[in-house]
């Protein structure tokens, strides 16, 4: 012990004359720039996906309905409510938010005499910190809690595919599929939007668990055509995928295809535990073997109905076979789905035209109910001068001829009018045929809609260009020039806008800005119409039509003629997934109708 040790502690006295270090008013102290304080939510960009609720380990977040926010495609209509009796301000909800709408302010003091006040809906219940800029936001850059980039789908190169109708999308490998499936946050926004309400997060989970048989069972719960939908579905699910808000949406369609591709058709019955339903003695006739008819037949067959499909053409599938080119949807994959449905006891009569070969009345008397999914097979014409020329074709007719194996007229210079997927289908089909016939491609597709609002899928446009077709959108056709009974080309004028302010079709043109597409053959692909000649006048009288001439059905697709159910493209769509959803719902309706009747 030294004397210094006794004296040195007294140096502490020097602090007596120094300023105290204590903060006198901690409440007015501002939190740091990144402070994890109270929650804010941009209610407009929030889609109520519930990912914040999922990640919260304290179960502090509940998704609740909010007045004034409606459920719609891509928005659950719910918003997160946060309970500060549970929250630990880890901000994982912010980091995982799919739309970056959720953030934390740097406010950290809040006094209230009502304990319930601390359970609130950020962004809806107005708070003092709502407009505070500072606070925790998702870290940037390269900080993601899940993959935001899509796993690239392997495809054949343009030069390997532009001469043949071979399928060019080759499909995911196991590793690729699992990597893509991993990106899903299981929000279910897709399920709500899908017309068939498929269990999308569930089958994606089955891929992650490498349980593809379970995946197939989930698919067949709502969709008996997974091989087909896995290739050509219009994937409304992907359009609303919550991951798409700050990255690429999940390739839901390709994942569905992966499950269907990986399960061999001979094991379907065993996996789906099918084929052991007793016939209930009731008979249903189905007109048309398109997606809605097949779907209705499948679900009716599962419940024991004896179904017979009447098909006008020599093979089943409707527009799926006769409207979609083989390079997008190979025939053997159509057969795989259809053969499984037929293996459950569904009968099919080919080359039978209802209305001429068999009357609808005959079906009415022979069967307990009739479902009609006859689709849109009539091409619509632009009706511009010259459109009645023999070298002007409808896209649907040409596509059907190609599928039937017939040789169609292919000229050296072709113009396609239309900007939808059917237009792209015929453009790319003709490009392939031209390439084979002339060794070069000269086909131009032109549409009213400018490129940013073209109804065709973006990848269709890109791939068409890769295959050397010209896509020149934003023009309205005015006339077809004909010289010596031969088509010289198509006159067009600039289209300024397609829809008016209220969203109705009312195109406006700039008559001075014109263009001439040289061509010796023109294909019109501006939509299709229905042909319901087979419905006899008495029945037609019972059916209700809306002012625009469309058939009115109830939620089970039952028409005014109670025994007749109509679904598919005629009612909704046009696309495959609506047809499947209609068929399923109609099957339920038919079951209800027959059982009540009996």
């Amino acid at each position, binding site marked *: 012990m030294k004397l210094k040790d006794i004296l040195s502690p007294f140096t502490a006295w020097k602090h007596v004359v120094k300023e105290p270090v*204590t903060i006198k008013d901690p409440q007015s102290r501002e939190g740091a720039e990144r402070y994890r304080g109270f929650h804010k939510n941009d209610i407009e960009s929030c889609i109520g996906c519930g990912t914040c609720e999922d990640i919260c*380990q304290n179960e502090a977040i509940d998704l609740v309905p909010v007045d004034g926010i409606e459920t719609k495609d891509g928005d659950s209509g719910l918003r997160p409510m946060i309970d500060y009796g549970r929250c630990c*301000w880890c901000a994982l909800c912010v980091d995982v938010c799919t739309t970056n709408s959720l953030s934390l302010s740097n406010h950290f003091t809040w006094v209230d005499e009502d304990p319930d006040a601390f359970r609130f809906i950020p962004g809806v219940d107005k708070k003092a910190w709502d407009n505070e800029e500072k606070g925790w936001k998702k870290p940037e850059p390269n900080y993601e*809690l899940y993959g935001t980039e899509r796993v690239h789908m392997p495809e054949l190169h343009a030069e390997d595919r532009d001469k043949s109708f071979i399928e060019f999308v080759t499909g995911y490998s196991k590793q690729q599929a699992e990597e893509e499936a991993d990106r899903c*946050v299981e929000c279910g926004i897709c399920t709500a939007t899908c017309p068939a309400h498929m269990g999308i997060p569930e089958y994606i989970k089955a891929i*992650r668990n490498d349980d593809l048989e379970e995946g197939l069972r989930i698919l067949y719960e709502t969709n008996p055509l997974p091989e087909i939908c896995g290739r050509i579905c219009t994937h409304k699910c992907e359009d609303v995928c919550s991951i798409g808000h700050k990255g690429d949406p999940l390739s839901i369609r390709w994942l569905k295809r992966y499950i269907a591709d990986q399960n061999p058709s001979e094991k379907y019955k065993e996996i789906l535990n099918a084929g052991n339903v007793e016939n209930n003695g009731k008979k249903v006739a189905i007109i048309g073997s398109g997606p809605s008819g097949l779907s209705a037949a499948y679900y009716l067959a599962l419940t024991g109905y004896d179904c017979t499909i009447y098909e006008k053409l020599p093979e089943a599938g409707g527009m799926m076979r006769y409207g979609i080119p083989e390079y997008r949807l190979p025939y053997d994959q159509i057969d795989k789905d259809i053969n499984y449905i037929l293996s459950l006891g569904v009968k099919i009569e080919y080359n039978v035209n209802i209305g001429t070969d068999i009357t609808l009345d005959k079906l009415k008397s022979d069967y307990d109910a009739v479902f009609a999914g006859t689709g849109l097979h009539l091409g619509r014409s632009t009706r511009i001068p010259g459109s009645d020329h023999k070298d002007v074709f409808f896209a649907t007719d040409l596509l059907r001829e190609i599928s039937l194996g017939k040789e169609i007229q292919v000229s050296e210079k072709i113009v396609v009018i239309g900007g939808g997927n059917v237009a792209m289908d015929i453009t790319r089909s003709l490009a392939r045929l031209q390439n084979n016939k002339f060794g070069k491609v000269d086909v131009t597709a032109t549409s009213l809609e400018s490129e940013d609002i073209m109804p065709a899928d973006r990848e269709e446009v890109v791939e068409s260009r890769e295959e050397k077709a010209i896509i020149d959108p934003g023009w309205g056709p005015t006339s077809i020039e004909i010289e010596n009974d031969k088509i010289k080309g198509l006159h067009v004028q600039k289209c300024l806008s397609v829809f008016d302010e209220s969203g109705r079709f009312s195109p406006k043109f700039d008559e001075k800005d014109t263009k001439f597409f040289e061509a010796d053959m023109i294909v019109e692909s501006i939509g299709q119409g229905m042909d319901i000649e087979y419905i006899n006048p008495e029945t037609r009288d019972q059916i209700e039509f809306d002012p625009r001439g469309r058939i009115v059905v109830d939620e089970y697709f039952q028409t005014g003629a109670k025994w007749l159910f109509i679904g598919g493209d005629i009612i909704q769509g046009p696309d495959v997934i609506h047809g499947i959803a209609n068929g399923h719902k109609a099957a339920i309706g038919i079951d209800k109708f027959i059982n009540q009747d009996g």
Partner: protein
Amino acid sequence: MKNKLFKITEDRSQFPEKNADGKIDIDLSSHKYLKLWQGPQHPGITGNMALELTVLGDEVMHCETHVGYLHRGFEKLMERRKYIQCFPIVCRVAVPEPDFNEYCFASAMEELAGIEIPEMAKWLRTLVLEMSRLQSYLMWIGGQSGAFGSGIIGQWANYLRDLVLDRFEELTGGRIYHMYQLPGGVRGLLPDGFKERMEETLQTIEKFMGDIDKVMFNNAVFKKRSVGIGYIDPAWINKFGITGPNARAAGVAKDVRKDYPYLKYADLDFDAIVGKDSDIYTRADVRRKDLLLSIDLIRQIFAKMPEKGDIKAKTPNVLHWKVPKGETYSRAECTRGEYGYYMVSDGTEYPRRINVRGPSYTHAIALLEKMIINTNIADVAGLMVSLHTYPPEIER
């Protein structure tokens, strides 16, 4: 100088009398012995824990430790949480040093999943671990001097710790629970001007450490009460699993940062701080030097770390991250010794087992029960703080 002011306690080893086996018969009915509870609510205990002391006069004859007063079942809780949901939990295992939990948890996961985190994230993790060490020692130093009756060091140290917490708040968004070291990386780069503000903080701490030297370490009262008391025999080190400053003060250079360099410690220039007398004073001194070493290391990190870089590696979707089947042990040197996470994954989205190895378990139970015998009651608090134990870490 011969000590005339303070009379050294006489040799009391003759009390109490031992029986023929050399053991003491504690018979409470003799009224010679008294049961005395220190804790669970007691300022002389670090946290909620109880020491059931049997005393003879003012001397401790026997001690049993009782824990369980703040058991929150972290380990079991984590078995029912997805991995990412454990991330906000782990920091709560040890309030004064959340970052070591975060690091061990994240690195165990990364090891099992085979993920290499970006260089920048490694530097930032090293930085927060050193910052955490700094603030934890500042908290300890107040407790150590407080246990021996000096309140002023605690006042200063809390102020200094607050300055470090301010820096934590800037960097991580939180003062106490930082939740910064996410599996796969970290949650943010250094904010603008952070290095300058940190340097200012370090200089303030250094200045106050000079005062603390004078008032605490060069203080007759402190020396009187700490020198020669609470001796840890170097032979016990491996037997009791003693790590950190408790081992280093006994001359055993155990430092995970040196022995098994993790993160960027291999790139930093330092030596493990070692003492030799192994008493309360030496342990305090080792910690003081370790605190100053942390300041030096933070400066080295700032000088060596890159300006830019990725903060997070690509990981599977955290909402259903299946960590590959396997088991691992991940460790780090915290202020109290070796902190470790033993993690077992069965390949599902949930951890099968997570065992937290907090150094307090060995220090505050087995070691304390042995060391405390023959200690004066008044020294029990000081002895316990000198082991730098923390009960929540015992009850995971």
